Each structure stands twice: as C-alpha cells, then as structure tokens.
C-alpha cells in the first residue's frame, strides 16, 4: 500500500508547492502587468484620437468605449475595439471616431497573425491612414471606397468589415451629431 500512498503524497506535495510559488510570483508581478497593459491601451487610444491627451473608460451596454479628452478636459472623440477574421486568424483593431461630425479619426491594428510581407502590410500607416476622415455613411468595401493592399484582399476586407460592423454598433449608442 505504501508505494501507492507515496505516489499520491509526492504528487500532491509538488503540485501544492508549485501552486504556492506561482501564486506568490503572480502577486508580485500582477500590478506591474496591469500597469503595462493599461499603458499600451492608452497609447493606442491616444494615437487614434488626434489631439487627445487623456483617456477615460466608459461602459455602455455591452461595449467598452474609451473617451479621448484633451488637456482642458473637453472631449475630442471616442475609441473602441473591433475584431475581424483575417487570412490566418483574428485581427484586433482600435477605431477612433468623432460622433458629433460622424467621421472616423483613426484606425490602428492591435494584433494580427497575417502572413508576413503580405497580409501584415495592413499594419503600415499607408493602409490605416486612409480611414482617417471617412464618414459613417461610406460603404467600407475593399476595392471600392477602401483601397486594398495588392495580394492581401482578404486581410483588407477583414479590416474594412470589422470597422463597419463596430461602427454600426457604436452608432446605436452615440447617434451621429449627438453628444458623447
């Protein structure tokens, strides 16, 4: 009997020890990690809302909206995350939008796993800047009002579609021209 008991006890002791060590290191590193994540988020929000200096997180129905405020505190625009299904996997992007004028203020790709050299080109400024200033009524269809990257039509359409769907949801919360 002791051979089996020894097995169970040793396995249990080692798992408990590892559980303790991991919990401790998690406690030590967690605040730093949260801080890093928040910083990265803020960077991308400020990037897509030109002129914004600070960020505020607002929870509206099921969407998290980031309010971009400048130094004096008046609102410059809002930003929100959008997800599209690209060539190799999910593409996550941050969309900046000004509801009062009904125009996009900026788009940035947060994470994607597109083929390097082809699909990966959606990360470049040349592609993302074309969304600045586009209005809500545009159709956002690749090769029409969105200039697709040659050889990466699937990725380009994925980005355009993601922006369009997320914009439609946000418009329900912030009607065009309304306050935010």
């Amino acid at each position: 009997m002791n051979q089996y008991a020894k097995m169970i006890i040793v396995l249990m002791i080692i798992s408990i020890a590892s559980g303790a060590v991991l919990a401790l290191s998690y406690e030590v590193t967690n605040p730093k990690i949260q801080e890093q994540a928040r910083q990265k988020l803020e960077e991308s929000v400020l990037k897509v809302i030109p002129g914004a200096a600070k960020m505020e997180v607002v929870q509206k129905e099921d969407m998290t909206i980031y309010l971009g405020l400048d130094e004096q505190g008046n609102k410059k625009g809002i930003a929100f995350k959008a997800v599209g299904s690209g060539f190799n996997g999910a593409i996550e992007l941050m969309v900046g939008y000004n509801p009062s004028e009904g125009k996009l203020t900026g788009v940035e790709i947060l994470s994607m796993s597109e083929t390097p050299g082809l699909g990966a080109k959606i990360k470049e400024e040349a592609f993302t800047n074309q969304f600045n200033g586009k209005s809500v009524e545009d159709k956002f269809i690749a090769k029409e009002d969105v200039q697709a990257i040659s050889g990466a039509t699937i990725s380009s359409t994925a980005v355009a579609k993601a922006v369009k769907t997320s914009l439609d949801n946000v418009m329900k919360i912030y009607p065009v021209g309304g306050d935010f």
Partner: protein
Amino acid sequence: MAKELFFIIIGSIFVNNFVFSRFLGNCPFLGVSNKTETAIGMGIATTFVLTMTAVAAYFIQNYVLAPFGLEPFLQIVSFILVIASLVQLVEMVILKVSPALYNAFGIFLPLITTNCIVMAVALLIPMNNYNLIKSIALGLGAGLGFTLALALMSGIREDLEFADVPEALRGPAIVFITAGLLSLIFLGFTGLVPLA
C-alpha cells in the same frame, strides 16, 4: 452550429495543420514517422490523448480556473499536469493491452506529454473560449491532422529508404526537407475555411 464544428475540424486538419503550418508536434513527428504502423499507432494514441485533454481543459478552465480568477498563472501548470497524467494513463493501458506496440513507441510515448500539439490545443480552448463540443472538435481535428501528417510522412520515408539520398542528408535532414515541401503543399489550403 454544425457549420462552425465543420470549420474547426477541417481547419485544424488542412488549413492550420498543427504540424505543417504551426510547427507543432515535431519531436514525435520526426521520431516515429519511419514506419507506417507505428506512425498510425502514435497518431491514434495522440488523438485519444488530445480529445481527452480538450475535455479536461474545458472543465478545468470553466470550473476551476475561471471562477477563482487563477487563470493567468495557473493555466499552464494545471493543463500540463492533466496532460502528463493522461499520458501516463495511456502508457499503462498500452503496456497492458499490447506490449509490442509499447516497445515500438519506446521513448516516444512519454514524449506525447511534451507534444506541443496537446498543450497548444489546451491553450487554444480558453483563448477562443470554445464550449465543450467545439473543444472536442478541436481535439479531434488536431489529432486527425497530426495522424494525417504522420501517415503522409511515414509513407514517403519508407520510399526514401530506397532513394539514393546523399550520405550527409540521410536521416533527419531529408525528413525536414520533405516536411518543408509538404508544408508548402498545405500552404495551398489557407483561406479554405474562415478562421474565427
């Protein structure tokens, strides 16, 4: 729902084959693919472990880790602990059922634990928060994809024995180059199925 299941299974067999387009599972892939029966045997054992891991990962994720918020740091350890125990169990079952198959695997049976596919499947489930059926589909698809890759490779390698392979390239070198060509072929599948 059935459409998504179909996409997941086909996706992980062809489009995103764990061996050819995600580089995973190379150690057993190289080691066991010289004879077709051991390759198929290994494929089946791995598929069995993969499906059980998918189920176990789903339950641990949703009933142990998530409720207590232990997710970020305990995920890897608990998954790998379950996988290792499952493999140990499979090792005992195979030893009891057919010692010949057990000898044919040799060192590669414990190496299923370190088979990256098993861990990758376990990690993918919380990442895409699949429900139980989708997780099983992923486990099954990954297993079948791995078995397909192994079968393909072992068929080719058995013919390679008679090919006039230059001295230095014999052994793993030629296997890598063949795997490279096979993954080139599998590249053709990309875009076949939209991946959520």
